[in-house]
């Protein structure tokens, strides 16, 4: 996979700091599974957290804390084995964190048609904003919109183009409120992408205002 669009530094710092909403953290983890370049960058952003841990003023724990942990060292560790087993046949198309969550090949998911050649699947994760899969037909363009907060997009299949360039499988678009764009699917294949936001999108123009109630992004 040749990846040419990566996360903003600030996004990787928020990921390392643990301050991203759940859906955005999922999306970052998905890209990291595929992208050695961003994995290397997170070593640096994680190291900021390590340096911080070293400089914090220690706070004593309650007296028996160490003994309580020592008493548990021999407990069996069943929970680690369970998480790994969920990989499906589709796991090569989807990055591991997503296939573990969905547990179904991408074409068998319960897609909901929302009009204009767009289907979606809401992952219904906690937190502000929304996390969903969008499946957009060839030639279809998502109405022009800006972003109230941040919007992360990871391409899982196909490609699209917008004002920022061409985005293919593995690429991420990392956009904030100042950016306005209108992505259009630019091959004869559906474009499937994972999108996570931390605030609702703002559609601009009549078409956008008409479509907003349906998409509810």
């Amino acid at each position: 996979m040749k990846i040419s669009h990566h996360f903003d530094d600030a996004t990787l710092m928020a990921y390392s700091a643990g301050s991203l909403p759940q859906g955005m953290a999922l999306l970052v983890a998905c890209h990291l599974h595929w992208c050695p370049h961003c994995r290397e960058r997170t070593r640096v952003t994680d190291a900021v957290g390590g340096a911080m841990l070293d400089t914090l003023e220690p706070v004593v724990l309650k007296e028996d804390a160490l003994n309580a942990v020592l008493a548990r060292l021999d407990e069996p560790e069943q929970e680690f084995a369970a998480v790994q087993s969920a990989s499906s046949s589709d796991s090569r198309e989807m990055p591991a964190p997503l296939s573990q969550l969905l547990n179904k090949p991408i074409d068998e998911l319960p897609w909901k048609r929302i009009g204009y050649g767009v289907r979606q699947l809401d992952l219904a994760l906690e937190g502000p904003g929304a996390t969903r899969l969008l499946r957009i037909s060839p030639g279809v363009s998502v109405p022009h919109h800006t972003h109230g907060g941040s919007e992360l997009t990871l391409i899982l299949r196909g490609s699209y183009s917008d004002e920022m360039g061409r985005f293919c499988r593995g690429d991420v678009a990392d956009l904030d409120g100042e950016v306005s764009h209108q992505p259009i699917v630019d091959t004869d294949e559906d474009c499937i992408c994972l999108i996570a936001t931390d605030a609702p999108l703002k559609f601009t123009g009549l078409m956008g205002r008409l479509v907003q109630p349906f998409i509810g992004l």
Partner: protein
Amino acid sequence: ERRKQVRDEWSACLTALAETRDRSEFSRLFGYFAPRVKAYILRLGMPDATADEVTQEAMLLVWRKAHLFNAAKASASTWIFTLARNQSIDRMRRDKMPLYELPEEEPDPDHRDMGEHLVIEGRMKEAIATLPESQAQVLHLSYYEGKSHSEIADQLGIPLGSVKSRLRLAFSKLKAHWGEDA
């Protein structure tokens, strides 16, 4: 240089723990890291009793996952920070979604040696100390208090874009201390 030795000591201790499974080695790590992990978790806004619990869970993971620690990739402090961070996120979520962690491979024992990065990582603290106040502030609010970028923007009364650009500036300085490949 003294600081670097301190770091090497804990990374060596953790590497040794993976092989010896020595409880006194673990107790030593606990003595140094548990009070720091607790301090971190308290800053995320958890009550004292919960912070104790989550710290204990994180330290239990240190014991269980010690064989996955790779001193050539991260220092003990960084590795334990990521465990504590994930444990805290897990505790704060109400649902039971799995936490998304990168696959970890057990390091080859022959390549478990301390990489040169430890020297570089030791410089991270010094690099953070040299950041201008405006950059250090957003870094602290993000890492120490787990605040989102929009929460930081609200708190400081500056646009979201300024929060991000301060973080980018901070990162490019820190990265320069790390090396060219990042």
